[in-house]
């Protein structure tokens, strides 16, 4: 949502993005060289394709980007690793929260840390992964913990076991692991969802950790910065309030990230000349001023790691397979393709009659009628027709259909959700776009009737 709001303040910038030439969108016919490219898709190995697959695999692997920050001492990676390794070696209980906006690599960094720890201390750690989207129900969560414990310790898991059986089993396992000096690490993704309801799971986990014999770490991961405030008193008092904050990358990091992800490795089996060419061209582009402008725009709208990865992925997909090099144009198209303005797009798709209805609704809104429905819109539509002699005057049922189209496009919506009883024409509706958006949409609309602008600007 943040992106959309932001962009709507910058109409000029948006238009600039849209008018940037995109080679494929013109005339609806594919350029000739495309067919050759597509043959490459179907054919056997070729270095460009291999490079593309390699880069795509890098982008799609969740952890790769964060391997960049492994060696810096004050990164979240080092902090997290220190906390976890000390609780493994010192055999203590611990709990912490990883907080930060969505797409900033909380889980990815945690994964890297856990991978390292599993290598460093084999057989001393066992990790239980839970997700709030799946296991927010206590019953489900306990069952899943028991299942994963059974899987990791080669025990037989019974599907029929009750909640009580499972929770007793977990407590017994906690004690056993404590005695064997094995640390259980519970990773609770979407931690805020576990804090709904009675929080029985959190309580029983944290309560079990109060005893001396157990040895466990609970790691909550959430994109709600106030996640610890959601906890009940009895849970909060058992929780150590250690928090790690994950932030989007700074502008200086961006350059390093691009290099880290996009430069081809020299030992990958790809032809040496191609790799050298690819890398030198990329390096030249990365310091290009125009490229910096594009990145600036990207950074202004959304600067999370996730967004950057999707931007790079999209750019990579637009890479010309014949030459096999990334160009500035690729990045430009990528930016415009992932920064969409859905409402403006669907405004452009509206038929003229649908635009009339929208403008009528807008006028009713300006007149400060509290609510409007199809009947009052039709009255306004008739008024407009009578006072301006508009050419587009259609019968009521035709308008009703256009009205339904608008509902399907989600440019307007019903105020109430109850669908019973009332027929469509009487149910109150509201506009889902602002005056500015409608105005901008009309401007961008090809061959928009001039009378609509007049109607937009003028009252009565």
């Amino acid at each position, binding site marked *: *949502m943040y992106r*959309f709001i932001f962009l709507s303040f910058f109409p000029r910038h948006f238009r600039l993005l849209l008018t940037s030439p995109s080679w*494929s*969108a013109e005339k*609806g016919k*594919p350029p000739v060289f495309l*067919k050759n490219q*597509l043959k*490459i*898709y179907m054919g056997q190995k070729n270095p460009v394709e291999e490079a*593309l*697959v390699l880069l*795509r*695999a890098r*982008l*799609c*692997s*969740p952890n790769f980007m964060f391997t960049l920050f492994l060696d810096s001492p004050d990164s979240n990676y080092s902090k997290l690793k220190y906390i976890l390794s000390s609780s493994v070696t010192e055999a203590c209980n611990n709990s912490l929260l990883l907080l930060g906006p*969505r*797409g900033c690599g909380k889980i990815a960094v945690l994964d890297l840390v856990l991978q390292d720890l599993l290598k460093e201390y084999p057989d001393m750690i066992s990790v239980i992964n839970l997700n709030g*989207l*799946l*296991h927010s*129900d206590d019953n*489900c969560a306990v069952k899943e913990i028991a299942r994963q414990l059974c899987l990791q310790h080669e025990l037989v898991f019974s599907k029929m076991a009750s909640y009580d059986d499972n929770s007793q089993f977990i407590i017994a396992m906690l004690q056993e692991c404590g005695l064997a000096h094995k640390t259980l690490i519970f990773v609770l993704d979407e931690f805020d969802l576990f804090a709904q309801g009675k929080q029985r799971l959190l309580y029983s986990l944290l309560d079990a950790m109060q005893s001396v014999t157990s040895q466990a770490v609970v790691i909550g991961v*959430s*994109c709600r910065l106030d996640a610890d405030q959601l906890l009940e008193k009895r849970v909060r008092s058992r929780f150590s309030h250690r928090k790690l904050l994950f932030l989007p990358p700074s502008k200086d990091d961006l350059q390093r990230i691009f290099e880290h992800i996009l430069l081809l490795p020299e030992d990958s089996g790809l032809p040496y000349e191609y790799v050298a060419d690819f890398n030198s061209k990329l390096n030249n582009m990365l310091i290009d001023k125009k490229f910096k402008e594009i990145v600036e725009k990207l950074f202004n709208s959304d600067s999370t790691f996730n967004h950057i*990865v*999707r931007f790079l992925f*999209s750019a990579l*997909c*637009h890479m010309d397979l014949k030459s096999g090099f990334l160009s500035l144009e690729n990045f430009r198209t990528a930016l415009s*393709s992932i920064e*969409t303005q*859905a409402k403006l797009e*669907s405004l*452009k*798709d509206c*038929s003229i*009659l649908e635009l009339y209805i929208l403008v009528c609704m807008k006028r009713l809104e300006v007149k400060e009628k509290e609510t409007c*429905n199809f*009947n*009052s819109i039709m009255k306004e539509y008739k008024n407009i027709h009578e006072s301006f002699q508009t050419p587009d005057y*259609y*019968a*009521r*049922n*035709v308008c*009703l*259909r*256009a009205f*339904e189209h608008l509902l*399907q496009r989600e440019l307007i919506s019903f105020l109430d959700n109850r669908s*019973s*009883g009332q*027929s*469509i*024409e*009487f149910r*109150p509706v509201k506009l889902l776009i602002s005056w500015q958006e409608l105005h901008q949409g009309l401007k961008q609309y090809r061959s928009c009737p001039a009378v609509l602008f007049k109607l937009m600007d003028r009252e009565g």
Partner: protein
Amino acid sequence: MDNQGSPQTTRRTTRSSLAAANINSENTAESSKSIDLQPMTINDLVYGNESASFDELISNFPGRSSQIIDLIRLLGPINSPIFPLFIYGGASVGKTSVVLEIFRYLKRPFVYASCISCYNPKILFESILNQLLLHRKSESNGYSSAKRCEKPSDFVNLLREALRRVIDTLKGNKGKSSSKKGAVRPRGEMIYLIFDNFELLREWDKSSNIVPFVFKLHDILRLPEVGLIFISSASLDTYYADTGFVEPIPVYFPDYTEDNVRQILMKGVTNQKIYSAFLDVVLKPFYRITRRVNELSAAFSPLFSKYCEPLGDFQGVPNENLKRKLFAHLQPYVAHSLNEIFRVVNQPSSETSSNNTRKLKGTSKKLGMYESSDELDFHMSTSAKYLLISAFLASRNPATLDGSLFDSTGGSDNRKRKRKSSEKAMEQKETAEQELLMKGPGTFPLERLLAIFQCITSVVEYSTVEESQTDGGTGGDGFNSLLMSDVLLQLSSLINANFISKGTSCPLEGSTRYRSTVSEDMALKVARSLKFPLSKYIYRR
């Protein structure tokens, strides 16, 4: 979603039915035994048997070439991992058919689940698992699913297991040379999950977090060999979740431009020249009203036959003179048909897909009350008509007026209350009018409906004594006494026909309340067919 000429693009078959059709055509001799389907193989995860070329793909979808190229590029070369894709655009712009055809062209395995046919999480999960586990519901297994699974947590575990198995088979497949001929072998080691009509998922369960869950499925599964594709008619910003969700990569399918619509409509037309001349006349005005190809083609098919009327058997190329003549012939019909664009329903046009007709049927039901012709185009018993009228009156008139309207002499035609139209009264009148526009017809209890019904019918008996003989069933003394049980039946059938809507019971009065959904035009029409003076009874504010 798309109604274009070529048959294989319009028919949206499920893969199993397609396979069934193929097998049937192969052994037509034992068509009666077609229930014994061969066990499904991994090859069944590929769509269609005949291969398609890229040129065919592009030419089958006029105006969609840039989207097709974008999608192919996003899907990438073989075995390349992919981020979740989110394909969106209005109705009937070819989202689903383009995606399916692209997969047919690429010959990659995929699993397709539409949220229309899989209308709750359990069915959706089980249908995906069934396809992955190559399980087919049949008589021998009691039409049950391969796995029972209701909760997302179970689904993720089962799905991961099933996907691993499929991916392993795909990897194993690669080594072997193609032994079976005829069957299309899946290419690559990627498996794609396609969720169609994704916008419906939002309404399934308001409280549950199924939307963020499915959006996050890619991260939860952590299998790079799995690609997710969401097809939705609503854009990404209409999906809400408390703490947001992982945004997939959007691909937008815009509505067809006028030129594209022309190309689509021209497909499969025998006499190209004449149809093109026809479209020159009609397309522009109609395009101002709607951009949906399915609606346009439904509106054009009767017009085109009108257009061709003066031609007779003429098959040649029309010259300017002829075009002008045809135009003059068509002109009056166009203006008329512009205002009735949606009256043509269930036109047996060749290109309407099953999906289309269903949509049209659905809307015709809604629009049924707005028929604008002078004659009723449905049949109804006389008492049902009276019931309809009394329901209409009960909804429109205030209950306090019933006494004065329906007194024993019948009718209030002589009792016009004159009032000075002062400034204030005018204002009141205006607000009341506004209220009527906003609130719609009022509700009424069953008793009031029956009382009005009896009044009306008795009035008719008085006023149309002579006519009652010709009217047959309605007249006679036994009418009133026989009435009640009959009327209740009629009422329920009117409710089923959506002429009267039944509300929930009112907490204060305890009885169920009804509401008439019939428009005034319609009610007047019904009254006219009965020769009933309805306008006398409607209370005008």
